[in-house]
C-alpha cells in the first residue's frame, strides 16, 4: 500500500490518475444513457475505429488526436444513423465497422513498421499519458460532465421514451447527435489509459453494476460514476501491484464490482 502511495509522487502516475479519474466518471455517466438506450456496443465499435485512426496517424507521423477525434466522431454519426434508420441492423453495423477498422489498423501499423507502438494503444499504458494527454482528458471530461448536467432532464426524457419526447416538440435527433459526439470524445480521451480494446468496458460496466442497486435514474447516474471512480483507482493499483496494463486492471476491478453487486445487491 505504501509502495502504491509512494508511486503517486511520480509525474506519470499522477497524470494517469487525474486523467483516468476524470474519464472514468464521465464515461460511466454517459454509459448509463447508452446502456438504457441499447447502444452498449457503440463504445466498442468506436474504440476500434479509434485504433485504426491511431495506427494511421502513427504511420504518417501526425499527432494522434488530430486524426482520431474527427474520425471517431464521424464514425459515431454513421453508426447511429444506420441504427436509427434500420433498427435491426445496428449491431451488425457496429460489428462490420469495428472489425474492418481493427483489421485496417493492424495492417497499417504492420506495413509502416509501427506495430510495436500499438500495444500501448490496444491495451492502455499509464506511461503513454503525457501532460498534453492529461489536460485533453480533463477538458474533454469537464465538457462531457458539464453537458450532461445541463441536459440531464432532456437526456432522461429521451432515454425513457423518445416518441413521448417528440410529442412534446423536443428535437430528439439533435440530442442523438449530442450523445454521439460525447461518446466519441470519451472514447478518444480514454484510449490512452485503458486502451482501445477496453475503453468500452469503462463506459458500460459501471452502468450495468449500478443498475442492479439503483432505485431511480438520478441514483443510477450517481452510483455509476462512483463505481467507475472506485474501479479505476483499484484497477490502477492492481496494475502496479501485479504488473499488468492499466486498462486490464480497471476492467478486472469493474468486473469484480459487477459480480459482487450481482451477488449481494440485487433489486427485490
Amino acid at each position, binding site marked *: 500500500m505504501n509502495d502504491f502511495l509512494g508511486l503517486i509522487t511520480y509525474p506519470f502516475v499522477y497524470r494517469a490518475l487525474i486523467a483516468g479519474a476524470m474519464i472514468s466518471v464521465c464515461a460511466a455517466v454517459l454509459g448509463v444513457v447508452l446502456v438504457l438506450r441499447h447502444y452498449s456496443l457503440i463504445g466498442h465499435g468506436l474504440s476500434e475505429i479509434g485504433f485504426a485512426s491511431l495506427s494511421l496517424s502513427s504511420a504518417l507521423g501526425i499527432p494522434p488526436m488530430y486524426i482520431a477525434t474527427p474520425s471517431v466522431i464521424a464514425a459515431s454519426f454513421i453508426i447511429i444513423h444506420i441504427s436509427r434508420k434500420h433498427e435491426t441492423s445496428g449491431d451488425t453495423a457496429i460489428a462490420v465497422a469495428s472489425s474492418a477498422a481493427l483489421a485496417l489498423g493492424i495492417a497499417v501499423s504492420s506495413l509502416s513498421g509501427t506495430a510495436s507502438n500499438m500495444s500501448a494503444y490496444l491495451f492502455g499504458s499509464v506511461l503513454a499519458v503525457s501532460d498534453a494527454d492529461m489536460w485533453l482528458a480533463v477538458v474533454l471530461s469537464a465538457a462531457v460532465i458539464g453537458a450532461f448536467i445541463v441536459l440531464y432532464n432532456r437526456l432522461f426524457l429521451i432515454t425513457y*421514451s423518445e416518441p413521448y419526447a417528440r410529442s*412534446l416538440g423536443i428535437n430528439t435527433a439533435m440530442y442523438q447527435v449530442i450523445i454521439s459526439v460525447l461518446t466519441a470524445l470519451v472514447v478518444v480521451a480514454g484510449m490512452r489509459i485503458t486502451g482501445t480494446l477496453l475503453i468500452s468496458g469503462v463506459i458500460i460496466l459501471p452502468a450495468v453494476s449500478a443498475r442492479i442497486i439503483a432505485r431511480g435514474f438520478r441514483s443510477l447516474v450517481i452510483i455509476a460514476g462512483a463505481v467507475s471512480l472506485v474501479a479505476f483507482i483499484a484497477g490502477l493499483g492492481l496494475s502496479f501491484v501485479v504488473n499488468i496494463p492499466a486498462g486490464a486492471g480497471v476492467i478486472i476491478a469493474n468486473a469484480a464490482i459487477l459480480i459482487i453487486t450481482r451477488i449481494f445487491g440485487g433489486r427485490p
Partner: protein
Amino acid sequence: MSEILRLTEAYVKYGDIPALSGVSLTAKQGDMIFITGANGSGKSTLTKAIAGLLPLSAGTLTRTPRMSYVPQYEEGDRDFPASVREIVLTGTQRPGNFFHTKADRQHAEAAMNALGISGLADSEIRTLSGGQLRRVFLARAVCGQPELLLLDEPCAGLDAQTHETLFTILRGMLAEGCAVVMVTHDISDIDGIPEGRVIRISAGRILTHE
C-alpha cells in the same frame, strides 16, 4: 374561443397502405372531442398524427405546441430505472426549458395527488400495476398544463373510481380552456363522461360528426 388544432385533408400511410384518408378536424379552447370506431379504423393513427409522431403524406396540421399526449401503449421500457415522480415531471418539459422550476414540481405533485398516486411518488415504475402506471401517464400529461390533451384509450386498465377521477380532472381542464381529444373504443361503455362532439371513423375516413 381561439383555435387550438386544425387538421386539414390529412393522409397517413404505412408503406403503401393508407391509414388515414382525407381526415379534417378542428378544436377550439374548451372543446371535448371523442374519436371512436372499430379496431383498426385509424383512431390511434389519427392521434399519433396530431401528436406529430407520424408524418402526413398529404394535408396540413396546425396546433398549439403546448400539447400532452397519453398513448394507448407506453413506448418506454417497463423495467426502466425511474421513480414515479421522475416520470411525471417529464410532462413539464418543453423545448427551451432545461431545468425544472419550483412551479413544475408543484404541478407534478398536484397531478399525482389528483390521480391518487402521491404515495407512490418515490416508487420505481417497474413495481407498479398496469392501472397504476396508467395513472402515472395521465398525471404526466396533466402536469404539463397543456392547451391540447390527446388521450388514446385512457380508460383502459382503470377502475371505476379512477374513471370518475379522470373525468373530474378533464372537466376542470375543459373549464380552464384546454381542448381534449379522446380516443375510445366504445363511447357507450363509459358512464359520466363530459359532453362533447363524437367523431366516428372507419377505414381511415371520418364517417360522422355528431
